[in-house]
């Protein structure tokens, strides 16, 4: 059952993004920023955790989940290190995703070449 919810919730979050693209003049970069910041805010309000528990990857794979991850990381770090945690928590939690992208980017740049789209 949790597979179905992951699919439905994940798909729905993407549809919201698509509506923003089609109905407003928002560029993709702005939408990504909006999603991450919204993820932080929703998580801070305590609304994202239930969704993540319910829909699993359907909530964590979209970039809202990245925001949620940052917010959680910061909460954990503040619990452990006090105010300093506000500075360290976000990057610690996001390190995996960012480093993975960075490493993949470097490897891909060495192995692949820019290709014509037509």
């Amino acid at each position, binding site marked *: 059952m*949790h*597979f179905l919810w*992951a*699919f*439905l*919730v*994940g*798909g729905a*979050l*993407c*549809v*919201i*993004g*698509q*509506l923003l*693209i*089609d*109905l407003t003049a928002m560029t993709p*970069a702005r*939408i*990504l*920023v909006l999603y991450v*910041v919204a993820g*932080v*805010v929703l998580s*801070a309000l305590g609304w994202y955790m239930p969704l993540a528990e319910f829909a*699993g*990857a*359907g909530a*964590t*794979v*979209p*970039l809202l*989940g990245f*925001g949620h991850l*940052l917010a959680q990381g*910061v*909460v954990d770090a*503040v*619990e452990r290190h006090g*105010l300093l*945690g*506000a*500075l360290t*928590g*976000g990057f610690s939690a*996001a390190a*995996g*995703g*960012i480093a*993975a*992208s*960075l490493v*993949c*980017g*470097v490897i*891909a*740049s060495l192995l692949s*070449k*820019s290709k014509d789209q037509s």
Partner: protein
Amino acid sequence: MKLSKQEYDQMNKQASPKSKLLPDCLWAFFVGGAICLLGEVLRTLYGRWGFALTDAAALTSATLVALSAVLTALGWYHKLATKAGAGTLVPITGFANAVVSPAIEFRVEGLVTGVGAKMFVIAGPVIVWGMMASVIWGVIYYFIRPLMGG
């Protein structure tokens, strides 16, 4: 010409075709949903193989990022995205595509000034503003924590 800017704005709105909302949303829903479903399958598998919950989630992200990088390098992610729109933009695979594609594109400008400098040209704002939001939340949390009885 007698034409006013307001008049022209109206003419332009009428002449410009709109995006096809329903097919766009269906594509976004099914492709985006499928990527998330794949994420859920991976997370379940990693869980079965004995990884803790947070580790399984991190491994899932890393796997999706790697997969997106391979598809990007082959030029397939772009092809899927021309149909799927937000379905490929919003998941973490879209973030990876935004990092990997400039790395490949600007390789010809060098490893430092090309790959290094341009890699986060699209995804950079996500990190900057995501991080800012998290730091602000962290400070707020520090001060409201005692009030929450924590």
